[in-house]
């Protein structure tokens, strides 16, 4: 009989499949994982401490650097929290612009995810295809806001600039062609034998475990739980828009992949309705130059970011700066379910699991 002994394998923080600076300490028996310790904090910048020391307006650029593949979603969550805290209501046109742009951002974030996830599992071509379409979306952002990655566009009370006239024609053109592009990605993956072998039945998490571990977003919906904050607690103008919530069945890597691909189609639907319904009007409401929310006010505002529930808990003491600001990043919480997902699996499946929960370390470490 051959004997096996326990082996400790260090993975990261400079491992290319860990999407940044995630470090895992794996306990192995042969090639089977018997224990995982997730080590994070390499990118900790003290965002919450910084927030306590600067005025409300100045924190918006810091939110860009949380989930840097979806800067606008983080912007939206923060400005909505401050607006609720100080009882400001943005004009309707601004709400629509926000929804349209954050849905574009969701598509862009999912494209980054799909490209890198597929590349982690060996499918190089998909990466090139995904980044081609993402480029178009980033061009839109550049046209509207002047920036591509850390956009810093939403303001407390509205948006600073209108959608330029040439945006609409190009947006419609993109919406026409993009469903065919999704078919291209799917043609490369959905029935690809190697892809199925790598994703089906891998890193399974049950619905009950997923809720208990606080999993949110597409990763939770992959386990068959129909929970989307855009539907459960509609914010902005989502209550006027029609869309479906795709869910998976088994909660494996493949289901999470299918949920995200379908979500891109639903985002297209939302943007179409947004562009049809967008009213004329102001872009930004009146906001006092020195914003001082009432003392003792507290809010917990959350949005459905591409990765899951992004929450901002703000406590005001009546001053110009937040007394306490807590960022509930979806990646941080979702990452906690990784040890359970990979338990009993193989080392190669860890890569698939990390990719399938779609973590961004900027948001994990804050």
């Amino acid at each position, binding site marked *: 009989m051959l004997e096996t002994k326990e082996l*400790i394998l260090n993975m990261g923080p400079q491992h290319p499949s860990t999407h940044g600076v995630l470090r895992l*300490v794996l306990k192995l028996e042969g090639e089977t994982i018997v224990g995982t*310790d997730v080590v*994070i*904090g390499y990118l*900790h910048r*003290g965002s*919450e*401490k*910084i927030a*306590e*020391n600067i005025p409300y307006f100045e924190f918006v650029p810091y939110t860009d650097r949380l989930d840097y593949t979806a800067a606008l979603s983080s912007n939206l969550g923060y400005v909505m929290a401050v607006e*609720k*805290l100080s*009882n400001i*209501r943005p004009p309707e046109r601004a709400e629509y612009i926000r929804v349209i742009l954050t849905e574009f951002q969701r598509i862009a974030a999912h494209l980054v995810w799909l490209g890198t996830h597929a590349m982690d599992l060996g499918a190089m071509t998909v990466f090139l295809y995904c980044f081609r379409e993402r480029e178009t979306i980033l061009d839109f952002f550049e046209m509207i806001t002047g920036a591509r990655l850390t956009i810093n566009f939403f303001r407390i009370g509205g948006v600073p600039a209108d959608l330029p006239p040439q945006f609409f024609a190009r947006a419609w053109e993109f919406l026409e062609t993009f469903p065919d592009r999704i078919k291209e990605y799917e043609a490369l993956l959905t029935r690809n034998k190697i892809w199925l072998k790598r994703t089906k039945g891998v890193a399974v998490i049950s619905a009950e475990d997923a*809720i*208990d*571990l*606080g999993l949110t977003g597409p990763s939770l919906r992959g386990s068959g*739980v129909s*929970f989307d904050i855009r539907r*459960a*607690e509609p914010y902005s103008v989502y209550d006027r828009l029609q869309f479906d919530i795709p869910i998976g069945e088994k909660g494996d890597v493949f289901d999470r992949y299918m949920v995200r691909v379908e979500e891109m189609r639903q985002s297209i639907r939302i943007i179409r309705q947004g562009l049809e319904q967008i009213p004329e009007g102001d872009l930004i409401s009146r906001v006092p130059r020195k914003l001082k*929310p*009432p003392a*003792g*006010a*507290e*809010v*917990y505002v*959350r949005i459905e970011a591409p990765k899951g*529930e992004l*929450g901002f*808990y703000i*406590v*005001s003491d009546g001053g110009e700066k937040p*007394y*306490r600001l*807590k960022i*509930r990043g979806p990646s*941080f*919480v979702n990452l*906690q379910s990784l040890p359970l997902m990979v338990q009993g699996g193989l080392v190669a499946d860890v890569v698939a699991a990390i990719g399938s929960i779609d973590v961004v370390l900027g948001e994990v*470490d*804050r």
Partner: protein
Amino acid sequence: MDEKEREEKIKAAQDAAAKRAAVPKPSPEAAPTLDVEAIPVVRRLREAFPDAIREVTVPGKIPDELTLLISAEKALSVCRFLKEEPEFSFNYLADLTGVHYPGREECLEVVYHLFSIKTRQRLRLKVRVREEEAVESVSSVWRTANWHEREAYDLVGIRFRNHPDLRRILLPEEWEGHPLRREYPVEGRGEGLRYVAHVLRDPEKAFREFEERQASQKSPEVSQEGGE
């Protein structure tokens, strides 16, 4: 001529003001006063745990921010009750965090944000303790609390009793103090530099210590000073 122009201007300004006023604004005063005691959660909790609720508030009069201040001894059983009671079934802990209020005697506050995926209700619970006291961990109720509590311990310095693995999570284990305490300076206290110096002085020793810590995998003594 001048007068007419002025009149027109005034009229335009008045129209604009009227337009602005016509836009409905959700004002906290206009919201109907809420009878907090009639809310099912509050009523049921008062029945089940007569002395657990210390205070019911709606901070800033903002709707759906109902907050219950729970006594620290009862926190764990209240959480378990709220999760298991089918009427509420708060099966999802959205967030858990700590806040430091140096002016108060009970200077540490733990804030729980509960949500029910079944019944779509939300609720905020709070627990206040003194500096030297520990809070009962709720990670046996919701497993997601594990990392949240580690973070609250790491950054705010709140200690949790019966936590399975109370280590620092974002900062290195050698870090002194807790950055989200109010008195902690935003520019830090030079810990990073001290740590680099410690490694440079004797890299082999630093690495050995690091490996030992990794191998032992157990939570550190929770006796270290918070904040100072």
